[in-house]
């Protein structure tokens, strides 16, 4: 944790009328990393990003962005970052090319060579008018405008919504190149594969709070490996001590075990006569499902857990 923080949020709250969108959110993004910001719809991802961009004013909490105050130092900070909104709305009469140049210039200029190259790679027709673009193509316009500028921080809010899988690949490559140039990326998403492919560290948000944060390996360690087995002999419950979430259905057994104790579980099961066995490695998805599937109490437990680390 010694590295310099590009984004530092502590105890951020923000309400819209009586609806609390963010309730004490903590987030730390370090220089040079791709930070996945995951959460279901309506969890508060976009609100957090809008506070970071100085578009919304925080009710309480401290927010530092690139060492400055996102509300007060708007102009200086925005020269150093680029933003892709999740739902790009273009000026109806303006072409995509014009919009790229406008957004790039407002940020302090574009790298001409990279602009041309990105337009090419994303197969974007820059002469169409805003209202003629499909959702995916509108998204490309914003992506090209953001990636063609030389900035320290890329704030991407569900950037690939509407992109086809080919274009999603191109996007992942381009983000990879940006990090090689030294850019830091805050990538908000609900697409787990995208986060798994790109992110070094991940924060998971739910109901306006970050409930888990860490590297992919950390988070994987927190989840349990799932075991599906078909057994020759149906065991008694006391024989299965050490396994969690045990369900026995006829000769089929489903259970979970901590990732580090898979070996011990095998030793337990082998004497029962295994006829088939599937061991599913912990995936982000299972963590996700556990966190979101759980009731409110489970997520409240997770918060002190997170703070303690």
């Amino acid at each position: 944790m010694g590295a310099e923080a590009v984004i530092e949020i502590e105890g951020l709250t923000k309400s819209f009328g009586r609806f609390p969108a963010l309730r004490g959110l903590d987030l730390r993004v370090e220089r040079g990393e791709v930070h996945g910001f995951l959460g279901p719809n309506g969890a508060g991802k976009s609100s957090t990003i809008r506070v970071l961009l100085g578009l919304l004013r925080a009710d309480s909490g401290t927010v530092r962005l690139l060492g400055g105050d996102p509300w007060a130092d708007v102009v200086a900070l925005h020269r150093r970052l680029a933003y892709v909104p999740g739902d790009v709305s273009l000026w109806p009469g303006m072409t995509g090319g014009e919009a790229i140049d406008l957004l790039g210039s407002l940020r302090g200029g574009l790298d001409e060579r990279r602009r041309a190259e990105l337009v090419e790679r994303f197969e974007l027709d820059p002469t169409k008018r805003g209202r003629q673009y499909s959702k995916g193509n509108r998204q490309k316009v914003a992506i090209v405008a953001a990636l063609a500028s030389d900035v320290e921080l890329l704030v991407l809010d569900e950037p690939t919504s509407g992109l086809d899988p080919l274009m999603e690949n191109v996007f992942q490559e381009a983000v990879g190149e940006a990090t090689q140039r030294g850019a830091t990326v805050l990538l908000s998403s609900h697409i787990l594969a995208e986060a798994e492919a790109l992110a070094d560290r991940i924060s998971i948000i739910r109901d306006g709070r970050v409930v888990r944060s860490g590297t992919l390996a950390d988070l994987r360690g927190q989840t349990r490996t799932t075991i599906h087995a078909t057994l020759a002999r149906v065991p008694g419950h006391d024989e299965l001590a050490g396994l969690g979430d045990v369900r026995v259905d006829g000769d089929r057994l489903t259970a979970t075990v901590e990732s580090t104790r898979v070996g011990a579980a095998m030793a337990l099961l082998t004497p029962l006569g295994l006829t088939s066995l599937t061991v599913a490695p912990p995936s982000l998805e299972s963590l996700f499902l556990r966190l979101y599937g759980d009731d409110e109490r489970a997520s409240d437990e997770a918060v002190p857990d997170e703070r303690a680390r």
Partner: protein
Amino acid sequence: MTAVSAPRAGSLVGTRTLLHATMRHDGRLFAPWVLVATLLSTSSVVVYPWVFPDQASREALAVAIGANPALGLIFGPAYDLSTADGFNAWRTLALGGFLVALGAVFAVTRATRAQEDSGQAELLASGVLGRSSRLMAGVALALVGSLAAGLVAGVTTGLCGGAWSSSLLLGATYTATGWMFAGVAAVTAQVGSDARTASALAVGTLGTLFLLRGLSTSLDAPAWTRWANPLGWTLETRPATGDHWAPLLLTVAFTVAAVGAAFALQARRDFGQGMLAQRPGPARGTARTPWRLAVRVNRPSLLTWTCVFVVLGVVFGHFTTSIEDLLAGEPAVQRILAAGAASPAQLTGAFVRTVLSLVGIIACVPGVQVLLRVRAEELEDRVEPVLAGAVARTRFYASHLLLALGTVAVLVLLAGTVVAVLAGGADIGVSTRDVLVQAAATVPAVWTVVALATALVGARPAASRAAWAGVLVSFLLTLLGPTFGLDDWVLGISPFWHVPTVTAGDPDWTGLGWLALVTAGLVTVGLAGFRHRDLAR
């Protein structure tokens, strides 16, 4: 009536459900238009006996109106101002119809084009819904809304003491005007390729016909010019001075024809497209600053407004040159002049001031539009990416404000110059310079109205539409206030009241100082508000 002109059986499936939903959600948006039309009409009959209690005051009213032909351009001829109903007919026939027509245009555009732009229509169209149902629901909403406006205004006016025959007929003219423009808007919604173009085309048609009607009645043009103009038909009903219902049949026929044409056009165009296809544009952009962006976004409508103001200048200028003839036709005015109560130069000066105030009030519309556009852009998420760039909010907002202030100044001076050149060359007692100075003196009043919009969009965005109230209040107080004998402090609410008459012996310029002060205050509130509030909320 319109089902006949619909292209195919089954194309109206689902209209009833859709209309029900549209009524519930958009119906209340028509309510303000019903309210304004009703207030306009009832206020005439309520206020008339009170402000003009005796014969002498009524004659004085006729003289005052006769002495200012600019009023006739807006309100049409005053046939009989000696009764409350005649007064009501003069004051509200043209205006009430105009307002209800605006409501109808916006209702149709909202239910058709705006829905296609926003994607709502696509959701609806994928349901069990005939091809023409959406248009049908939009048109029906406007027809019902206009009917409500006419009925409520007519009946309320009757209840407030108006004669039933003329009050109901007057209400019917509002309905008829609303109906015709529901038809026009249904057509323009097929022609324009987005909501803004569609409503601009319809409102442009309304404005042009309104102006032509004013000209044809004020300048004693041949009768056919009135019959050739759909808006002229409502004038021919002559509420309180004849009560002819027959001309309204023409308006119904016009409505049926226009709506039929709209359905025919709709059957021929693609979803989300207009009759005019979009061409590819430049691959590189030149708009690279907030100021250039503001210009770029508003350019098409500002170009249109420039044309409108050149035409307004020509019309008003031509009108000004005939002031002597117009006044000569008024025996009462001649008596005033003969008695030395006013000099011809004074009357001409007051007339020029009124004409330019009218120009100024119309110029408020594009000014307010530029600022409301900021709010619209904000709600459509287009301000967010701009402000995510290295752009201070104040600079962004100030760019739009400057554009609005600059635009209205240029438009007023443009029309003013045309009027000045025409009037200065006509030997009517005012010089080109006088008119130009008068036009320049009108600009600060327009700025005040624009500043009100700035304050609202900046500090109270949820109420930003109230900016139109500034335009409407200025209009009503400036043109109708004086004839009502309202107190100065009421008249002073309109910024245009503070504009001095430059041809007067010693014009009082302090009014402009007050205007500047109020303008500066409102602008400050607006800029500070925009700087400190949450965006897109």
